[in-house]
Structures are given as structure tokens and as C-alpha cells.
């Protein structure tokens, strides 16, 4: 019986996925793998695959966590892999100490004055980047997702719900953990030319705008 469901999202980095999945299969914690197959890549033989014929962005990992058959869900993006076989076990142990928060490896602080999406940080943070997350599935039930339009006005609402999720789960407080120890045990994989979300126009403006909007809600 799996203890954790790993929700994977794949977008134009098939060379990385094989490595990530091999490393997840080698973990001492038993995982069920659920792959959100963005833009029609292959399924890599995982237990559960959802094919998305377009690039849905990182948002889908959040509602899809509700389909997990385990209490705990982890998300790892397709440019990172665990560097050792105890990684998920240790992440789960850390996460169990914060059942109502998100445990991850890359954090940012929230500032109530601009720029709201503040500096990179480790330890207790308001925002954990969805590059790596582990959390209780039940946290998804309590989050309202507004439609987040980019400030550019581009017709693409699929932006940065992962930031919103962190802020909403923690109600804007530094309750999440961005573990430097976990980060040091993750291996960076090639990003590919122009594939990552940071290559999108307005990426940095968008994440600031999402954070600003959350601050505005808190103030209201």
C-alpha cells in the first residue's frame, strides 16, 4: 500500500522524466505515481496517467491531488529529482510535523509592502514553490481559487495558482517549511531551452501580481 502519491507534471522534458521516475521507484517509502501528461508526452509506465492535450501549467497538480488514494501527496516538477533513496521518507517525516502546512525545499517570504513576492528564504515561510511539495491532500479542500489573470492582459488565466495555494493554506502566515536540508538532496536536471515557466513573458510580474492580490484580500 502506497504511503504517498507523487503527482508529476511533464512538459517537454521527457529525458528528465525517466530519471525522476526511476529515482522515485527506488525510494524506501512506497509511492503511487500519478502523471499529468502535459501536451501529450509519453506516460513512462506510471500507475495513473492523465493526458492533457495542452500545456495546463502547474495549476492542475493542486486539484488533481484530490484524486490521490493516499493521505499524503507530493509534487515534484520535471527539472528536479531526489538525490537519494531516503529523500521522500525524510520529507514525509518533516511534513508530518506540520500537517496543516506545506513542506518543501524552496521558499519565498511574503511582504506586505511591494514587492510582495519577497526574497528567497528557507525555514518558516509564507510561500513554498511547487518545484517540490509534500502536504496532506485534505488541505486542498479549504482553498478558494480565483481566476488569476496576468497583468499583461494576455488571454491566459493559468498562472501561479501554486503561489496562491501556499498563501491560502497558510492564510499568509509563515507556517510552511522550506527545508534547506531537502533542497541540498535534490538534483537539478536540465531545464531545456525556453521550456520552463520563467521563460514566459511577464512571469515575474505575474507572480508579484498574484501575491499582491492575496495581500489585498488579507487586508480586506
Amino acid at each position, binding site marked *: 500500500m502506497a504511503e504517498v502519491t507523487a503527482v508529476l507534471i511533464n512538459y517537454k522534458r521527457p529525458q528528465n522524466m525517466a530519471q525522476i521516475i526511476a529515482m522515485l521507484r527506488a525510494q524506501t517509502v512506497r509511492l503511487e505515481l500519478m502523471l499529468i501528461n502535459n501536451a501529450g508526452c509519453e506516460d513512462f509506465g506510471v500507475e495513473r496517467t*492523465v493526458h*492533457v492535450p495542452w500545456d495546463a501549467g502547474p495549476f492542475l497538480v493542486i*486539484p488533481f491531488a484530490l484524486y490521490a488514494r493516499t493521505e499524503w501527496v507530493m509534487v515534484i516538477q520535471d527539472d528536479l529529482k531526489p538525490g537519494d533513496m531516503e529523500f521522500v521518507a525524510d520529507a514525509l517525516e518533516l511534513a508530518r510535523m506540520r500537517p496543516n502546512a506545506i513542506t518543501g525545499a524552496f521558499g519565498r517570504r511574503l511582504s506586505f509592502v511591494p514587492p510582495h513576492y519577497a526574497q528567497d528564504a528557507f525555514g518558516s515561510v509564507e510561500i513554498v514553490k511547487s518545484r517540490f511539495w509534500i502536504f496532506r491532500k485534505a488541505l486542498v479542500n479549504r*482553498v478558494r481559487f*480565483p481566476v488569476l489573470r496576468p497583468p499583461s492582459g494576455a488571454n491566459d488565466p493559468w498562472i501561479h495558482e501554486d503561489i496562491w495555494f501556499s498563501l491560502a493554506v497558510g492564510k499568509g502566515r509563515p507556517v510552511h517549511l522550506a527545508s534547506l536540508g531537502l533542497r541540498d538532496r535534490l538534483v537539478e536536471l536540465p531545464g531545456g531551452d525556453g521550456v520552463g515557466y520563467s521563460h514566459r513573458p511577464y512571469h515575474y510580474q505575474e507572480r508579484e501580481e498574484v501575491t499582491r492580490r492575496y495581500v489585498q484580500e488579507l487586508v480586506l
Partner: protein
Amino acid sequence: MPDVFLSIVTRCSPDRAELLLRNTRSVREQTDQGFEQIFIEGAANLYDANLSLAAAGDVLAGRYVYILDDDDYLCDPDFVAEAKGVAAEEDPDVIMVRMRRLHYFEGEILPDEENWRGPPVLGKVGSPCFLVKREIWQEHIAEFGRPICGDFYFIRKLWESGYSFHWLDRVVTEVDRSSV
């Protein structure tokens, strides 16, 4: 509280992940973006899924609440805009709309002509047929917690309680369980 017109509540039931894609995409394609979507864990059985709605009640911010389960999707991109217009003009407690069931009865539309503008009838109304003011939703959502037909008992309670109904004659949602 943020100014949100509509809270769309989506129950995610086991083994229907593929269907959620269609749901979320249809929601995001609305011409009016004055809504939020809340995803809650459904259940393998209808009773627990009906009970799960009550748990979402206190996090909703919308002026109205609408249920759009993961196997449902919006087929009218102007749904939110039209409902918002009705709310601005008449401020009804409940806005009734129509749904189409694609998986049987050859695309039966509910409520049908016979039951449109009349009291809710068992089997002739579904959860995607009504938008309800949030406060009213929160007060009566326990009516939904039935083993079956919670949607009918809920909306019948509102009808019998004398709340004001507006009938917005648009098919806004399609339900297709044929692939489940």
C-alpha cells in the same frame, strides 16, 4: 471578504481525474471572470459526496454558490456574465438554469418544459440547475446530506421556504458520465 460574484464548488470523486480537465477548462473560458472555484474531495458513494458539500460552506466568498462536479462542465461561456446581470437587476435568492444530460435520454434537458418555473420535481432537477445566495446555501446545505437526490431535497427546501426564484432560461451545463 473579497468581492466575488460566484463560488463554483467542484466535488472531485475517485477515478474521474480525466473529467476534471474538461471542467476546469470550461470554467476558465467564461467571459466574465468574477468567480472562484473550490475543489473538494468527493467520495466513492453519493451519500458521502453529498455530505462533503457542507464542509466547504464556510470558506466560500461568492455572493452566489453553484455546484459543478468534476464530471460536469459549462457549455455556455456567458453563464457567469448572464447570471451576474440577473443578480444586479433583480437580486433573487435563487437563479434557476438548465442542464443537459448527455449520457442518457438523448440529451435530456433539466428542468424540462413541464417543470420549468414550477416546484422542483424529483428526477427533474440536478445540482447544476441552481445558483443560490451564499447565506441561504450555508443555512440549508444540510438538506443536501441525503443518501441520494440531495440536490432535489435541497432545492425543494428553498422553494418551500418561500425564497425568491429567477428563471434564467439557458442551458449552461452539460453532464456526461458516459466515459466513467
